[in-house]
């Protein structure tokens, strides 16, 4: 009971401190918000880069075009062999007819190609096999595997839709953003800690009379220290609340603009933040609270040593 009474008093003192030093508190919260926003920009960039890479990876495949009238047995053999490789994720075989239909569909708006096809008596296309690798690094191996003499003679051509350059570029851009973002985060965190340190020192200065009396009448150091540490944690939690709100607004407003960069696919930003909201809030809340509590601890400690 006494414990709760003391905790209640400490929180009450802390809250009064915040009200008395509202402007300093506001400035402190603002810098902490910037620190948290920069952390979340980093997280967002990671999420966007991951989804961009996933989309690009989806687009990589090997298309194998067989000569027309390749026997089904050869086609089945090629498919079975490629599907049996652990480096293969999926093999799809289109017959010559399906390949022709797909070709027509792809060029539905190009009458000259369609007319040229009409001129031909026979289906000029052979069967097509699309192979997706388990990992992007497996494609060179699969290209090599297609040289298998059991069916390689029937392969007319093969194309490798190589997006590895684009993936590399996305990874590089993401790494650069992460690098500068990390520097920005460290700077804002240090600023935040310093500002909290000074805010607490100002709070001590404005309440020096009250704190002096507290010490004079036998208040324990913890009773002097804790309200000021709780002040700092209040600042951190306010900042967390504001930054989370801002992030929600920014994502809601901004994500539709990202759709064009993702070829109409979901950039995954909202999904990522929604699915990981609790974890992100808890981790960031814990870290920022720890940093500001330490800054506050140091500021009060310096005063208490006097």
């Amino acid at each position, binding site marked *: *009971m006494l414990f709760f009474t003391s905790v209640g008093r400490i929180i009450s003192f802390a809250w009064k401190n915040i009200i008395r030093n509202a402007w300093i508190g506001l400035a402190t919260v603002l810098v902490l918000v910037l620190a948290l926003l920069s952390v979340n920009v980093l997280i967002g960039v990671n999420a966007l880069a991951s989804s961009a890479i996933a989309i690009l990876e989806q687009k990589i495949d090997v298309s194998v075009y067989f000569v027309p009238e390749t026997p089904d047995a050869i086609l089945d053999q090629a498919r079975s062999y490629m599907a049996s490789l652990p480096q293969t994720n999926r093999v799809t075989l289109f017959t010559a007819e399906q390949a022709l239909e797909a070709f027509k569909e792809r060029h539905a708006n190009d009458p000259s190609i369609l007319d040229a096809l009409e001129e031909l008596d026979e289906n000029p296309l052979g069967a097509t096999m699309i192979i997706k690798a388990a990992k992007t690094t497996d494609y060179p191996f699969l290209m090599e595997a297609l040289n298998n003499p059991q069916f390689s003679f029937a392969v007319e051509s093969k194309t490798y839709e190589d997006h590895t350059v684009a993936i590399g570029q996305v990874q590089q851009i993401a790494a650069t953003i992460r690098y500068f973002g990390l520097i920005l985060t460290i700077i804002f965190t240090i600023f935040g800690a310093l500002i909290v340190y000074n805010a607490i020192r100002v709070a001590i200065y404005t309440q020096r009379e009250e704190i002096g009396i507290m*010490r004079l009448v036998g208040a324990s150091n913890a009773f002097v220290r804790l309200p000021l540490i709780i002040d700092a944690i209040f600042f951190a939690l306010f900042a967390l609340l504001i930054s989370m709100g801002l992030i929600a607004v920014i994502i809601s407003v901004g994500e539709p603009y990202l759709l064009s960069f993702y070829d109409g696919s979901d950039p995954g930003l909202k999904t990522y933040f929604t699915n990981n909201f609790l974890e992100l809030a808890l981790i960031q809340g814990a870290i920022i609270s720890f940093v500001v509590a330490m800054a506050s601890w140091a500021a009060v400690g310096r005063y208490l040593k006097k």
Partner: protein
Amino acid sequence: MIDLQNISKVYGSDVHGLRDINLTIDPGEFVCIVGTSGAGKTTLAKLLIAEERPTRGKIKIGGWDITKIKRRDIPYLRRQIGVVFQDFKLLKKKTVWENVSFALEVSGETNKRIREIVPHVLKVVGLDQKAHRFPHQLSGGEQQRVVIARALVHRPKILLADEPTGNLDTINTADVIEVLKKINDFGSTVVLVTHNREVVNSLKGRVITLADGRVISDKKHGKYILQS
């Protein structure tokens, strides 16, 4: 109760606040410590509440050696020594009741105990009818009595009053001294640091005179012997 052995306090390399002080104050005594400005009275008071540490010597309070007291133990010492200063040190935005209860709140006392203790100490200092007034609504003497009430909430064995009447007129001074005598009658040791000749002479008690950081006189029934 209070035992000072060979106490010296040196500021910097050569400013002597106190020089080789040896004193014993017994439980229940009412002791006046007098001296001119710079004699070392306030330094002595600060050593007793561990606001400063002696350069040499040993200080014992109720058998507790506080010479090298740990920082975390100071609050417990201060709950045993009630302190009254010349400049009151009251919180202006708090009422009489709140100023007194504040000392208990920050020491972790229960609300029930606070409701029991505060009216009692306010009655002792004669301010039970003015519990809800703010400091600016009180006379200087009444403000000082609030400070005494606040100093009493922990039932200290020692009450240390450093120039408590320094800012008061004659009538208010008499009121405050009456309260201190009353507290002494209840059994608390009272150490009154003052340079008020009339107060010292009217008390007719033990008078310790300091000059230049040394005890130059210690009389059981002394008088103020210095030139003001």
